[in-house]
């Protein structure tokens, strides 16, 4: 069953002539995981925000985004607000700044419950603590009473994960969820993400610039370049048989064990040179 269907999505900001997204099409089935990969500025985050209906008001949008039967581009603000946090949720890139610094994190997680289910504060607290334990926080009671600045980056990202998952959404959008974390923490947070997604059965749109990370979490991948999708396929196919020169570059750069010791490591530019006219 198709959960998310994005069709010919084009987004332009303000007076820019070059669209940030240019005719993007992809679909995602319920419970499946799709990686969106590309360099910064390729339109990954804009895609995520378009699915959330969170594009800034000065963005001009054409095409359709259909999520669980709702036309996102047609919905009113209050219609969108009902979906956000309930049907679709988002894990952001910056755990250090994505939480309100003046509010205890337990209350921030509980808010997601209260906004959608109208939960009472007593049971909400219990559910919050359970969820915090589920995302791998060892002392969930203490964490719930902490302010964001009292937590480490990895802890905060787990709190954000808990916020994204507590309402059992159909789709979780992860926008470079581990980029801001150091590598060891990255691995444990990714493993946890994999585990909780598996347990909840939620679909996932996983955005990253790192093919290695995407291949750990996702089954399908789309490769984005300059606002367009240049290649789509399963993770295995993409690694075995990349078609677009840009994808070839990404794959070569991700396969570190294939590099000859003493030789220069491959970079994307060895395979793909953006033509100067299109880039600038």
């Amino acid at each position, binding site marked *: 069953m198709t959960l998310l269907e994005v069709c010919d999505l084009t987004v332009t900001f303000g007076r820019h002539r070059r669209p940030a997204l240019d005719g993007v099409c992809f679909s995602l089935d319920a419970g499946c995981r799709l990686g969106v990969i590309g360099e910064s500025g390729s339109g990954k985050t804009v895609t995520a925000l378009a699915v*959330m209906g*969170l594009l800034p*008001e*000065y963005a001009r949008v054409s095409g359709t985004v259909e999520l669980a039967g709702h036309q996102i581009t047609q919905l009113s*603000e*209050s219609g969108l*607000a*009902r*979906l*956000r*946090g*309930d049907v679709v*949720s*988002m894990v*952001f890139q*910056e755990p250090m*700044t*994505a*939480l*309100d*610094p*003046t*509010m205890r994190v337990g209350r921030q997680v509980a*808010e*997601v419950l209260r*906004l*959608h289910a109208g939960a009472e504060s007593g049971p909400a607290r219990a559910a919050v603590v359970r969820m915090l334990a589920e995302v791998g926080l060892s002392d969930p009671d203490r964490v719930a009473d902490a*302010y964001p*600045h*009292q937590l480490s980056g990895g802890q905060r990202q787990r709190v*954000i994960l808990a*916020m994204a998952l507590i309402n059992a959404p159909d789709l979780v959008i992860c926008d470079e969820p581990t980029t801001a974390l150091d590598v060891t923490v990255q691995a444990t947070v990714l493993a946890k993400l994999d585990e909780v997604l598996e347990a909840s059965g939620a679909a996932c749109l996983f955005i990253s610039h790192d093919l290695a990370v995407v291949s750990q979490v996702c089954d399908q991948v789309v490769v984005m370049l300059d606002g367009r999708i240049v290649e789509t396929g399963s993770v295995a196919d993409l690694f075995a048989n990349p078609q677009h020169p840009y994808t070839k570059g990404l794959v070569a750069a991700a396969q570190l064990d294939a590099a000859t010791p003493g030789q220069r490591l491959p970079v994307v530019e060895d395979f793909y040179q953006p033509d100067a006219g299109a880039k600038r």
Partner: protein
Amino acid sequence: MQLAGRILKRLGVFVVSLVGASVLIFVITQALPGDVAQTLLGTQATPDEVAQLRAQLGLDRPLIVQYLDWFGHVLVGDFGVSHLSGDSVISLLLPRLAVTMWLVGLSMVGSLLLAVPAGMVAALKRRSWQGVLVSASAQAGMAIPVFWGGILAVMVFAVWLRWLPANGYVPLSENPASWARHLVMPVVTLSVVQAAVLIRYVRTALVEVLNEDYYRTARAIGWRPMGALLRHGLRNAAISLVTVLGLQVSSVLVGAIVVESVFNLPGLGSLLLTAVAQRDLLVVQGTVMFLVLAVLVISALVDFSYVLIDPRQRAVQEGR
């Protein structure tokens, strides 16, 4: 322990500011041309008579002695006796202090009640006509001098519409309804003028919040823009707004002095103006000392309100 250190430091600043202010006030009042002895005796007095009265009032002593005498008494709460009326300065100040406190306090509250919602509209709707309208009105409001606004209000509401008394004051304890009727126009005038300044700060602080990641998080969990701003924006914006509020207290006090004379309210402002005109220097010194004290106390309160608003400040003080 850091909190204790901070309080001590703050107290030190407080004391130094107070002493510094007292010296400045004394020097400046001494530098005023004119003489209370001359005022008391009138233009017919001979220089001998003036000199005799000056000696009697202690005005012929060296300035440093006069200063120490005055400030020493101020420290124990004795602001001296008005040379003109013979009343103690404190007995002149206190009843007027109440009037000014009401005016300033209500105006601060009023300006916040105007500026916060208006600033929210200006920030959220900054790309549409509603926001531009609010910002433009605030700009126009800032250009209005407070006395002109007051006179305009008197013309409209007291002279033409005859809804409110043009001037004067009735103590709250005497007749609450009449007290309120007399205060409405001065308070609204001062609130509007202060709000016009505040709106810009509120807008700037909130626009900053709109660009913050946590605001986006709030939207992503299902808050609508206004809800996200109320729930997660105001408290964060307050951290920078409190500083502005602290700085504005002194401008509200200055505004209050003007408003008091426009509406003929018997507050500290009108006392100060009369005392300056009559060279009743002890009253001038006492009143200004009071105003300085008020500003210092409020800015100290502002400094500590950060601790209440921003949990990160508390962490620093708990010695983390």
